[in-house]
Every structure is written in structure tokens, then in C-alpha cells.
């Protein structure tokens, strides 16, 4: 029989992930003296959302000024950043997390940029206190950072599937090396989840690693998930032409201040006409940009179009030149953004054609519930980066690429300290053998396996239907019922053990199981939140209701496999949250410009 081998490793700290959060955590843990093992589903620096991000990164004005940026606005103080995060979060951010971000962003980003520049990467200063580079550069810098130390052992193309625990204490992880099918057992005293967010919708601008693996694993291991109802929608993702489907090029064009197109709906109406004037004028330069546009885009019917019909030809051409200067500065190449050549889009404009665009979820505000030191309720289990929650609440008002550096550093340091001061928790032999069997041998008869691909498509359909940018009771409820059916079917379902060599079906099964958990958690949290707040927008409850909903939704897994919802008050020890109600999202934004 064609069966898989097994490879055992042992370290103080295991890190799950291979992008910004994971690398920062691994380095910080190694610095404290821990023996670190990093396991990444993709290649380090060539996986995750970091490599396809817009790659904006920022800090406080004074730190930027000290880096020699004379145009830096020194009025952007850490205090201001702190207040921004809290108000942007609709007061759901844990204020101690927001404070950690504000205090550390200057140093963390400076180190990152300096490392990048040492290896020849480009960072273009964008006032008031940020830089833009390319996702590719972010990836290369992370890879370089990891390789610059010898105290981290790393394996790539390893999909971690389980976090091992012994009496509510992390003991290591199990995973599969995807090209060989080899089982990986990594025992450790502490585990850090840094595997990114989740994206359950059919239309994507995210990497295919974004299946919420770490969130689902942590939940199964006994940790809580929080803020799962909040997904960050990015307005301006290409639907057509097909070769660029999922690209954020239109978004970059729009925020870059190039020739402004009319944004039209299917009937040719300018959707800007539906915007409230005072809000529209402020939107471009504000941290509210994505929320303001998502608010109106979600209310427009059908797909939208970027139309350049009313833009003077000369103005458009000048914009193309300016855009190429920016691209050249950012990446060293003209015409190309990320890995694609966009000359065809300009040709379309010349022919009078439009770009078909939509919104797509870029980031999960929700994730694993952590304490101040990034530890979960499971002893020795930590989380950081997009996989964790608590920094940004209902709407992310600061850069995630900065976030992952700061959280990674805290999680790595704290996990290493924990590990160095404790002994191994040894999993029971039989229990471990059973877990390994579930991956290697499977369950039930292979002939009775359900169609995992079909289930995966069903989950996307349900997410589109009930979990999109504008929500209401009935569709959320139907979607939740649907997801629960999928999860029940999964519980009963047969599956076969992983096969040596690249096993597509195995990957699909794990994806379905993890996304189903995240989606159920998201829908349940959303359904119970009978108000609008940040990126959770409801047509049946437009008000921002601080009287009843100023809490974080927390989900945990019951013994019987059901997901259970509870509430947590966020830390509000510095800024007092508002009371009463706000008529809607836009009114809230007006109050906190």
C-alpha cells in the first residue's frame, strides 16, 4: 500500500505560518534563546496575503521625521494613532492592544524598512507618515529576516492541521508535508498561531492559503475566537477582464489620486450621487475610506463600473504617466503591478470600455482571542498577526503589515519565556496515535466519501448569500442553517487518509472543515449583533447601538461540537466609549472624523 512516512521534531516553540507575523514571532522567540521550529503552508515570503497586499505601511510622524522624511507630519503622535485605532474600531478594540500598537509602530516599522533597504528594496514615502512598497518586497524581506538567524528550523509546504494539547496546555502540532505526504509531528512547550485570516466568499482578492486554518485549529484546541462578524471589504477589485480578476489595481488607481473615474451602476447611474457630500469630500484622505465606500457600494445594485468617459483624454494620459512613475519607484518596473501587465486596462479606456469592479474581503478583523501578552485561554498557546483579534474591533483603522510586526514580536517573546520556564506536556500515547490515524488512515469507507469540492462551493455560496457586506436577519439565518448542515455532514463523513505525493482531495477537505467553522462563527456572531457597527452593516438594523452592543462576540466550541456564543467587554480604560445610539454608520463617522 502507498502510505506516508512520519517525521518527528522537537523544539521549545513551534510557529505556524510563513509570513510577517510568523517570521517576527520566530525571531523574537529565538532572541530570548528558544529553539524554534517554523512550519509554513506556503513558501516563506512567497505565501499569505502579504505578498499581494497594496503594501502600505506606516508609523507615527515623529519617528518618520527622524528617519529623514522631512515631509512627515509630526502631529501624527502615538496618542493620535491610539485614538484613531479606538474610534475606528467603534470602541471594540482592546485599548491595551491599541496602546501597544501606537507605542511600538515607530520602532518596528523603522527596523523593517531599514532591513529592506539593506537588501535593496524600495520604500516610497507617502505623507503624512507612511510608505508604499510592493508585496513582493515585503515577502523578500521576511524571507531574508528568517534566513538571517540560525536558531530557527523551518519547513515549507507543511500544512499544520492540529494543535496538540494536554489538559488545556499546548504540547505541539501535527501537520502534513504537502509534496511528500509525510506526516509531521512537532512537539513543543509553546505554540504560536500566525497563519493569517479567513476568507469564505467566492470572489477573492486574497491568497488561497487564507482558509482560517489557525483559527479553526485554535478553536478545536479550546481557545476562543472573537470579532468574527467583521470582515474588511475593499472597494475596487476587478471582476473583468478575467486575466485580472481579483486584482486591486482599480483601488490603487482610485486612492492614488489619478484621473478619477465615474463609478456607475448597471443602469449607468453615478453612485457618488448617493453619497453624502460632507463625507465624500473627506473620504480620500481619511482612515474611513474603505468603510465609507463599502457603505455605499453595498447599497448599490449589481456590479459597478469604473468609467472614464467624462475624463479628458489628456488628463488620463498624464495619469498613466504618473502612475508609471510611481510603479517604477515602487518596483523598478513600468506597466506592471504585482505580477501583471496592465496595459490592456489602459487600452480598454482608449476604446471607451469600462472596468468592471466589485468589493472583496481583504482582511479578517476577527480571529483568535488573546490576552495582552498574546496568549490564548489555552496555556502555552499564543496567536498573532491576522490570525489574532483584538486590535481593530469592528473596523481596521491602521496598517495590518505594521500590526503583524508588533504582535509577532510580543507573541514570540512571551511564548519563548513561557516555554523556557516550563516542561514538556507529553500527550497520551493512545490519544496521539488516534489523532495521527485520523490524518494517515482516515475514517469510514473511501467509497462513502462526500464530494468535498461540492461542499467547498456550497460554503462560498452561503457566505456570499448571508455574510456579505450588507446583511439582514433572514439571509444570515438561512446561511447559518446551511453552514450547520455542512458541518453536521462533515462530522458524519468518511474520508481517506492522506496519500503520498500532492493530495488535492486532502487539501480540499481540510479547507472545507476550517472554513466551515470560521463561517459558522462569523454568521452566529453577526446574527446576534442586531445593529450596524463598522464593517458589520445591516439593512434591518441601521443604528449603531452602544446601549446594547458595545461588546466583543466570543465563540467557543462545546463538547458536542456546537459553537457557542458569549460576550466580552473590551478594555476601555483610557478613552470612555460613547453611550446611546447613532442613527447609522455614516453618522458615527461624522462624529469621529
Amino acid at each position, binding site marked *: 500500500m502507498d502510505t506516508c512516512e512520519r517525521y518527528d521534531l522537537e523544539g521549545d516553540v513551534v510557529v505556524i505560518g510563513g509570513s510577517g507575523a510568523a517570521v517576527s514571532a520566530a525571531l523574537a522567540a529565538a532572541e530570548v534563546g528558544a529553539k524554534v521550529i517554523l512550519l509554513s503552508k*506556503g513558501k516563506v515570503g*512567497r505565501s499569505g496575503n502579504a505578498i499581494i497586499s497594496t503594501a502600505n505601511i506606516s508609523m507615527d510622524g515623529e519617528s518618520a521625521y527622524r528617519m529623514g522624511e522631512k515631509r512627515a507630519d509630526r502631529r501624527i503622535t502615538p496618542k493620535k494613532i491610539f485614538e484613531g485605532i479606538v474610534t475606528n474600531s467603534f470602541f471594540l478594540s482592546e485599548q491595551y492592544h491599541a496602546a501597544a500598537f501606537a507605542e511600538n509602530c515607530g520602532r518596528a516599522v523603522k527596523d523593517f524598512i531599514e532591513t529592506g533597504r539593506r537588501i535593496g528594496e524600495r520604500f516610497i514615502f507617502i505623507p503624512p507618515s507612511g510608505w508604499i512598497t510592493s508585496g513582493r518586497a515585503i515577502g523578500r524581506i521576511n524571507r531574508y529576516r528568517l534566513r538571517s538567524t540560525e536558531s530557527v528550523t523551518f519547513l515549507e*509546504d507543511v500544512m499544520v492541521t492540529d494543535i496538540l494539547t494536554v489538559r488545556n496546555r499546548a504540547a505541539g502540532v501535527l501537520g502534513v508535508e504537502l509534496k*511528500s505526504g509525510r506526516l509531521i509531528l512537532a512537539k513543543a512547550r509553546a505554540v504560536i498561531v500566525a497563519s493569517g485570516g479567513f476568507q469564505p466568499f467566492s470572489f477573492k482578492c486574497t*491568497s488561497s492559503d487564507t482558509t482560517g486554518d489557525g483559527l479553526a485549529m485554535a478553536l478545536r484546541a479550546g481557545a476562543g475566537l472573537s470579532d468574527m462578524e467583521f470582515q474588511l471589504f475593499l472597494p475596487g477589485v476587478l471582476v473583468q477582464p478575467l486575466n485580472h480578476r481579483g486584482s486591486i489595481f482599480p483601488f490603487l488607481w482610485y486612492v492614488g489620486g489619478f484621473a478619477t473615474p465615474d463609478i456607475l451602476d448597471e443602469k449607468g447611474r453615478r453612485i457618488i450621487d448617493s453619497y453624502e457630500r460632507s463625507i465624500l469630500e473627506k473620504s480620500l484622505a481619511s482612515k474611513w475610506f474603505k468603510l465609507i465606500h463599502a457603505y455605499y457600494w453595498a447599497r448599490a445594485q449589481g456590479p459597478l463600473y469604473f468609467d472614464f468617459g467624462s475624463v479628458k483624454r489628456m488628463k488620463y494620459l498624464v495619469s498613466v504617466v504618473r502612475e508609471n512613475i510611481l510603479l517604477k519607484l515602487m518596483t523598478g518596473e513600468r506597466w506592471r503591478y504585482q*505580477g501583471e501587465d496592465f496595459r490592456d486596462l489602459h487600452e480598454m479606456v482608449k476604446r471607451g470600455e469600462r472596468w468592471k469592479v466589485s468589493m472583496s474581503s481583504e482582511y479578517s478583523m476577527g480571529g483568535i482571542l488573546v490576552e495582552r501578552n498574546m496568549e490564548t485561554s489555552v496555556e502555552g498557546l499564543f496567536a498573532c498577526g491576522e490570525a489574532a483579534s483584538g486590535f481593530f474591533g469592528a473596523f481596521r483603522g491602521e496598517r495590518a503589515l505594521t500590526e503583524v510586526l508588533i504582535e509577532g514580536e510580543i507573541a514570540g517573546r512571551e511564548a519563548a519565556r513561557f516555554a523556557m520556564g516550563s516542561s514538556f506536556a507529553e500527550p497520551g500515547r493512545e490519544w496521539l496515535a488516534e489523532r495521527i490515524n485520523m490524518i494517515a488512515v482516515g475514517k469510514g469507507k473511501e467509497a462513502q466519501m462526500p464530494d468535498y469540492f461540492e461542499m467547498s462551493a456550497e460554503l462560498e455560496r452561503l457566505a456570499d448569500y448571508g455574510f456579505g457586506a450588507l446583511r439582514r436577519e433572514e439571509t444570515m439565518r438561512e446561511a447559518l442553517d446551511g453552514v450547520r448542515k455542512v458541518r453536521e455532514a462533515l462530522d458524519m463523513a468518511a474520508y481517506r487518509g492522506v496519500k503520498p505525493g500532492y493530495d488535492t482531495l486532502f*487539501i480540499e477537505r481540510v479547507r472545507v472543515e476550517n472554513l466551515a467553522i470560521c463561517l459558522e462563527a462569523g454568521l452566529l456572531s453577526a446574527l446576534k449583533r442586531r445593529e450596524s457597527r463598522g464593517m458589520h452593516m445591516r439593512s434591518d438594523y441601521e443604528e449603531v447601538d452602544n446601549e446594547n452592543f458595545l461588546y466583543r462576540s466570543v465563540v467557543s466550541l462545546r463538547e458536542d461540537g456546537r459553537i457557542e456564543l458569549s460576550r466580552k467587554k473590551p478594555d476601555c480604560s483610557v478613552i470612555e466609549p460613547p453611550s446611546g445610539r447613532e442613527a447609522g454608520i455614516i453618522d458615527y463617522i461624522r462624529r469621529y472624523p
Partner: protein
Amino acid sequence: MKVYLFRWNPRTEEKPRYDTYDMDLNSYLGRREATLLELLGLIARYYDHSLSFLNHSNCNRGVCKRCMVRLNGKVVLACNEVVSEGMEIRVEPVNATRVVRDLVTEGL
């Protein structure tokens, strides 16, 4: 459209073969075009769950380069390449001497 697809599991099969698929893109997608990466996903979903192509960590933006295959002999990125109804295509791994399985190779 017609797809000739390289298939090989070097652990259990002596030599590669080509499977042929006659597909009507429109019936699956409601459009007559697909990216090559989408097409491979359709084949895995509707025809053969055992088809291996790299899909666990794809950027879909031409950045990671992990979706690289040969299309009619030419090396392309499957996520950026559009195929359409009426075409006849041959899809093979970039390097047939380093096949892990089907289109997945060492070194990708």
C-alpha cells in the same frame, strides 16, 4: 473546449499518460472564458478529484509563481492565462523529470 492533460503518479505508475476532457466552460461558469487555474479547478471538481495541481498557497496575482505550467509547450502562469471555448489545449508540468504528481513538480 478540448483539454489534453498530463497525468502521472510516479510512485505507482510507470509512465505518464494524457487524459482528454471535452468541456463546456459556459455550463460551469456562465461565461466562455476561464483562467487556466480556474479550468484546473473545474477539472478537479467535476471530473477527477485526484488531479494534482498546486493550489494550497496561490497568490492568483502572478507574484508567487507557484502555478507555473506548460500550456501548449510554453511556460505560463496558470493564474494569469486566459483560455476560452473553442480552444484545444495541452497542459503539462514545467519540468517532466521532477514530477511529484500530475502538474506538481519539485522546485515549484
